[in-house]
């Protein structure tokens, strides 16, 4: 019986993450691998370890029911013996078949264009902001890491055997694995391509009167990069800090000060009037002294207006005296000091002014206006 075209024969009960979800998954995998907020570092030994794992686990073959051993070989003789003794005969010679891995000691700068010569001088870049709390303040730490350094590691993987059929078997596995020229390994959460560069034959078939065996050499190149965790930087960033400080309440803001002087619109307006009456006291400066006004609120005076008095901010031909001259006393009238607007006054402070009166036959006054401002 035929099956309808759109009939699902296999239902994927574990959907594979894609796009952004997959990227988040990869990032999470990196986090899990390192156990920190930054990617785990990758060095040469990490790449060697995972390359060996690739050969041992993914490209392994078995002959006569036994797994073919894989030996990663270095120069130390005892280390070589330590790796191979389990697979030797009574003469302590390794029995075929087996696989050897030798890494060329000369590691070259990488040819992977993704990370090639783009950022000079180990410039570090913000990787992520990590919130922290030190018991008092909330803040962030900025984790910064430099661009990884691309490297190429070349490995010689040789398969030794006495039989053509075993050579075929291993060669087939390699061919299938590198069908698309490259195979990826995952090293500390980083994905690196392994490229099959060439396949060579080093068999000793021409040794007619000596021991003969097949040797097939697979040259592979791991295109990775190194990230040294010692190069990571963690720097503190934004912190939310509360700073308390005391101020002298009678310090007048400077003329150039602009911030913090405009009261909030909802503040309550306050005004007070200083009056001069004909016949009242005159001052040494020929200006007329107004009556003193005792302030009963904490007020920020910002402006003033004059009635029957001249407004002379500077001395000129028309203004032989500065008017008005304003004074404040913060010690119950014992002494007065000059001030300019705006000024913050407190309850009990006394204001007075000197005016150049226009018509001395009528009252003259100065009205100061501001806003109640509780400090």
């Amino acid at each position, binding site marked *: 019986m035929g099956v309808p075209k759109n009939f699902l024969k296999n239902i994927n009960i574990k959907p594979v993450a894609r796009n952004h979800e997959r990227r988040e998954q990869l990032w999470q995998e990196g986090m899990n691998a390192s156990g920190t907020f930054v990617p785990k570092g990758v060095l040469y030994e990490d790449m060697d370890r995972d390359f060996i794992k690739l050969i041992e686990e993914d490209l392994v073959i078995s002959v006569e029911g036994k797994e073919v051993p894989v030996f990663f070989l270095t*120069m130390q003789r005892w280390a070589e013996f330590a790796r191979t003794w389990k697979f030797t*005969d009574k*003469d302590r*010679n390794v*029995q075929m078949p087996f696989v*050897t891995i030798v890494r060329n000691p000369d590691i070259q700068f990488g040819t992977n264009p993704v990370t090639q010569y783009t950022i000079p001088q180990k410039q570090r870049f913000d990787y992520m902001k990590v919130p922290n709390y030190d018991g008092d303040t909330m803040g962030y730490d900025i984790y910064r890491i430099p661009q990884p350094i691309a490297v190429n590691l070349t490995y010689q993987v040789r398969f030794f055997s006495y039989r053509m059929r075993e050579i075929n078997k291993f060669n087939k596995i390699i061919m299938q694995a590198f069908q698309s020229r490259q195979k990826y390994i995952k090293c500390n959460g980083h994905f690196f391509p392994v490229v099959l560069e060439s396949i060579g034959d080093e068999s000793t078939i021409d040794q007619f*009167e*000596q*021991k003969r065996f097949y040797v097939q050499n697979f040259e592979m190149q791991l295109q990775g990069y190194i990230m040294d965790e010692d190069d990571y930087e963690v720097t503190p960033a934004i912190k939310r800090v509360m700073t308390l400080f005391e101020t002298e309440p009678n310090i007048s803001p400077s003329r150039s000060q602009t911030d913090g002087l405009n009261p909030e619109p909802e503040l309550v307006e306050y005004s007070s009037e200083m009056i001069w009456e004909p016949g009242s006291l005159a001052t040494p400066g020929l200006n007329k002294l107004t009556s003193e006004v005792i302030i009963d609120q904490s007020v920020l005076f910002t402006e003033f207006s004059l009635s029957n008095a001249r407004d002379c901010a500077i001395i000129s031909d028309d203004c032989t005296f500065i008017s008005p001259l304003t004074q404040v006393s913060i010690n119950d009238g014992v002494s007065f000091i000059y001030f300019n607007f705006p000024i913050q006054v407190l309850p009990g402070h006394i204001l007075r002014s000197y005016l150049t009166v226009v018509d001395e036959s009528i009252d003259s006054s100065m009205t100061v206006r501001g806003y109640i401002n509780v400090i």
Partner: protein
Amino acid sequence: MENNRPNKVPITRLTKFFDDIDFDLEIGFGREYMEGDLNMTIILYSVDIERTDSDDVYKEVRSQDIRYFPPVEIQVNLEIAPAENQTYNSNGTLRYRDYGNMTFNVYQKQLDEKLCEIKYGDYIGYRDKEDSMKFWTVVNDGKIFSDNEHTVFGYKGATRTVECTTVDPNEFEGI
């Protein structure tokens, strides 16, 4: 009626002072020395090609699948070359040191008496120590032995020189 037996023509060279009786006498002296005095024994595992069930394509077999005729003890005069330190990898890693090649001389008459033949690829066992049997494989069976070195005064070939190289247990391990 067809005669399958090869024609035999008597050898008459050197006949004035050497004949077949002298030849047998010389061989007798030599065998007394080689088989009696030296008594260096090897074991011939002659492969039974017909009974060995080999791979259809490559004619390869596993060591345990090799079938051979009943092993035969042969007294020979042998020499084993010194072992060499070698490495499997060209960069000097994975050392191995195996026995050197074995070369032995054997009287053809002994082989004829024991109804055995040494052929290319047969295996040779030699007990170099009480608890150790090492195997070689024949790389030169010495079947042509009419040169001066292997004849008695140029009368007729008497001895064969057989060359062998070592085999791993993976290839052959005897009984």
